[in-house]
């Protein structure tokens, strides 16, 4: 058993154990777990059957087999990072929507607690009510406190 086989075995087993443990503790959602499970399974397969890598490299015409491994590895990482950026963007959009909704709700609550008599019909002070025309900008308070 050569060193790289042992290293590969250790690496893949660590990843698999980590996935199972995180899943068990509800720290990892299935959709991410599936991705990492496949990564770990791939590493494990390559560790047990190193011939698979050399064979594929020969088939594809890659002179140094480990280069194929690096290429595939970086490709997988790239795709995963991209996926995370996508999820991050989606989350940002969702938190933004929530923040806006929260602000609007806070405004409604403040309005209702200040004007309990106007409780049944939520709405802003109506614009159609002709306010007293302010003669100067120093007395613009037309809304009831």
């Amino acid at each position, binding site marked *: 058993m050569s060193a790289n086989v042992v290293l590969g075995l250790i690496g893949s087993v660590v990843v698999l154990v980590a996935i199972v443990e995180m899943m068990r503790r509800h720290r990892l959602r299935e959709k991410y777990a599936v991705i990492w499970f496949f990564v770990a399974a791939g590493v494990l397969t390559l560790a047990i059957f190193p011939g698979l890598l050399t064979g594929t490299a020969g088939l594809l015409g890659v002179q140094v087999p480990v280069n194929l491994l690096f290429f595939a590895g970086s490709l997988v990482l790239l795709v995963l990072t991209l996926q995370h950026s996508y999820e991050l963007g989606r989350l940002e*959009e969702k938190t*933004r929507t929530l*923040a*806006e*909704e*929260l*602000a*609007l709700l*806070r*405004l409604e609550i*403040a*309005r209702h607690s200040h004007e309990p008599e106007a409780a049944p019909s*939520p*709405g*802003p*002070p109506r*614009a*159609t009510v*002709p*306010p007293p*025309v*302010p*003669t*100067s*900008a*120093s007395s*613009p*308070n*037309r*809304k*009831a*406190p």
Partner: protein
Amino acid sequence: MDLELTEVPGAARCDAYTSLVRSGGELLDPGRRVLVVMPAYNEQDSIGAAIAEVRATNPTVDLLVVDDGSADATAVIAERAGVPVCRLPYNLGVGGAMRAGYRYAVRHDYDVVVQIDADGQHDPRYLPALVARLDDADLVIGVRFADQATRYEVSRIRRLAMLVLARTLSRMAHTRLTDVTSGFRVANRRAARLFAAHYPAEYLGDTVESTVIALRAGCTVAQHPVQMRVRQGGRASQTPLRASLYLCRAVVALVLALVRDWPEAPPPARVEEPA
């Protein structure tokens, strides 16, 4: 309505407007319910004057201040002035603040939504003229007078950015748009409903991209000349590096806006208030 105000604190006299009024200019159409949305981020020095000025010039409009997570007394000042304040829990940028404003307007059934910045840059005396332009447009952008644009000190690179934006969007809109980065905007129900659902939060997205969204959704966009004032707060210094960065961001914002997938028509009133 007393439009010929003699004194408004913090407001420079605007001769162009007074001449407009004297030449039989418009008054605000009383049949429309107008909401002025004022996005404010750390504007405690100018927001009081901005609110007072809007009320003094347009007493029939409703105001909504969207406090974009300010760390200063912006929200308190606005509340003391009797304006409803929508406090965002953290800073979202102008896009987030405005989308909240558009949602509020859609829910409370306003006919017209106006964006006026809290820094005193936008002169609310132009509001009736801008609103009147909604007769043949869904979105009206208040842009600097042509003569003012040349006097307005901007670096050459920044001007190039503005030119690229203006040219591209003019072609899309089939009308002349000279300054699409202006935040002085008036939207009718159709545009407001669109913006309540889709309003970008990115830098420049709130102006450039939102215009593209409106055009893509089939809205008519027009512009109306206004006199812009110098900001009351300190303006960010215009170094060549900053200007170049602005150009890059403008191009990125434009390209993104053009290639992105946007809805073809304003969506049904998705954000309707539950009965």
